[in-house]
């Protein structure tokens, strides 16, 4: 029984992981939290639908969609984010909220608010390990397969290619990288392209897994993806992967626990959010993250000082 829920947790993690890696890349290289990332996923899902009309082959459609989303990323960079480079982390964040509104509602305007579907016929359940794990093959296994391969490809790219090294150098210290000969503009473009590719794939996968497309499908996952990134450790791809696993498994295990113990299972939606907040409070750098600048003193000290301050400072 537990194994089934662990499996479900892995499936959930698979859906989130590619988006989380993308968010993490953008945060590491461009230093901002992209609130439009969920909508990039939705864009990928919808364009897969569009191209499906032409090719009738889901895989080809998904690949064409990737081009669209990657392009969308570069366009955003050129029009918006390149101009916000030295304005701190808040300006691009607000801009990304604007982008999110534009993207999501443009899709709704064009396609209408009703649900769409890829029209896949899902085969009957497969059963593994003598009944321990039951799954709907396409719905559950496709996300895992895509997640595994795309994640591996990304990790290889980041670790072993020249581009990957350039991206990591820029993330570590932009000015130093520039001075060392890295063309940061190209790095930014490639980061957006990579993040766009991953987002589009995960959007298509989400469409397959859930079965229906809605304009808010990606945005609904945004907080979960942020939770994965922060829990794992911002600025680290390993962190994004680890965080996605933790978040996916925790959510699934909570569901299991709630069924058994009588807690309200509806709360499972809040599990990633709770993990996110807990991480920010206890260890803001996450499980594997690099230290952020400045000192963050322990919570106890802060509270103690606050109480002292209140006693003296109120009047």
């Amino acid at each position: 029984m537990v194994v089934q829920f662990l499996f479900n947790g892995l499936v959930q993690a698979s859906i989130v992981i590619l988006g989380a890696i993308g968010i993490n890349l953008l945060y590491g290289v461009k230093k901002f939290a992209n609130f439009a990332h969920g909508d990039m996923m939705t864009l990928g899902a919808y364009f897969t639908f569009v191209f499906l009309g032409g090719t009738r082959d889901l895989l080809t459609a998904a690949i064409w969609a990737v081009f669209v989303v990657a392009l969308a990323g570069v366009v955003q960079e050129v029009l918006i984010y390149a101009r916000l480079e030295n304005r701190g982390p808040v300006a691009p964040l607000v801009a990304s909220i604007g982008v999110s509104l534009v993207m999501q509602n443009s899709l709704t305007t064009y396609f209408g608010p009703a649900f769409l579907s890829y029209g896949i016929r899902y085969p009957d359940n497969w059963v593994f390990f003598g009944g321990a794990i039951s799954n709907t093959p396409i719905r559950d296994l496709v996300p895992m397969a895509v997640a595994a391969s795309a994640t591996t490809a990304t990790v290889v790219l980041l670790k072993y290619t020249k581009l990957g090294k350039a991206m990591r150098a820029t993330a570590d210290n932009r000015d130093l990288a520039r001075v060392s000969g890295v063309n940061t503009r190209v790095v930014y473009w490639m980061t957006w392209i990579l993040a766009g590719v991953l987002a589009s794939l995960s959007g298509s996968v989400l469409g397959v897994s859930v079965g229906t497309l809605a304009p808010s499908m990606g945005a609904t996952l945004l907080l979960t993806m942020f939770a994965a990134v922060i829990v794992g450790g911002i600025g680290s791809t390993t962190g994004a992967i680890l965080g996605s696993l933790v978040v996916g498994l925790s959510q699934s295990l909570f569901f299991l626990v709630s069924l058994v113990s009588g807690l309200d299972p509806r709360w499972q939606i809040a599990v990633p959010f709770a993990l996110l907040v807990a991480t920010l409070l206890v260890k803001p750098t996450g499980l594997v993250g690099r230290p952020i600048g400045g000192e963050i003193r322990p919570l106890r000290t802060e509270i103690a000082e606050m109480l002292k301050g209140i006693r003296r400072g109120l009047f």
Partner: protein
Amino acid sequence: MLLLEVDGVSKSFGGIRAVDKCTLAVEAGSIVGLIGPNGAGKTTLFNLVIGTYAPDVGRIVFRDERIDGLPPYEIVERGLAKTFQIPREFRSLTVLENVMVSARGEPGESPVLSLLGLRRVWRREEELERQSRDLLALIGLSELADEPSRNLSGGQKKLLELARVLVMDPSLILLDEPVAGVNPTLSLKILSLIEDLRKSGKTFFLIEHDMNVVFNRCDRVIVMHQGRVIAEGKPAEVRAHPAVLESYLGG
């Protein structure tokens, strides 16, 4: 009397030890210079004294009272103040407001009293404005009092840094490169102001790279290198000290 004592203080960031078992003292009413090559840990030491960072080990004592580990607002309350190496003015506030906001213990900084708009609060405000304008006159920034501070030149911003700490009426003032990048006339003005203030009882601890300033104006000089104090004494003694020469030329 020893106003400030730093005793065996160390501070590391990540794997790097910025300050390493540093021990020094500053006497009341003196002007002490802190010199050393870049990366010697001088600014970090200042940040430790003012409470921005807490030392990993060691003690910092001010007026016979331990202050290490206290937050800055408690340390400032006891009569310490520090400027920044690169001026950090509050850009959207005017020059006058920059100075006034730096004053400590203002009753008006409570939301309740501000809301009530008590006469007591605004009488103090008027007095503070007078004091601040006088201070600006002393420093030479009077005409710019109502100018947004973002419009100031680099040298003027340095002056503003000084005005901000002076309005706090501290006993010990930590100045991080008070005349770096400032033209000679202005430098002279700042330095003679420091001398005047010292005569009226204040103590200055300053980081400087300009050796003329250090050797002509300071009563004592402390030299840091790689986080440690490697020499201290009167300017003439330190100038000839072999370890000092080596740290600047060699290491």
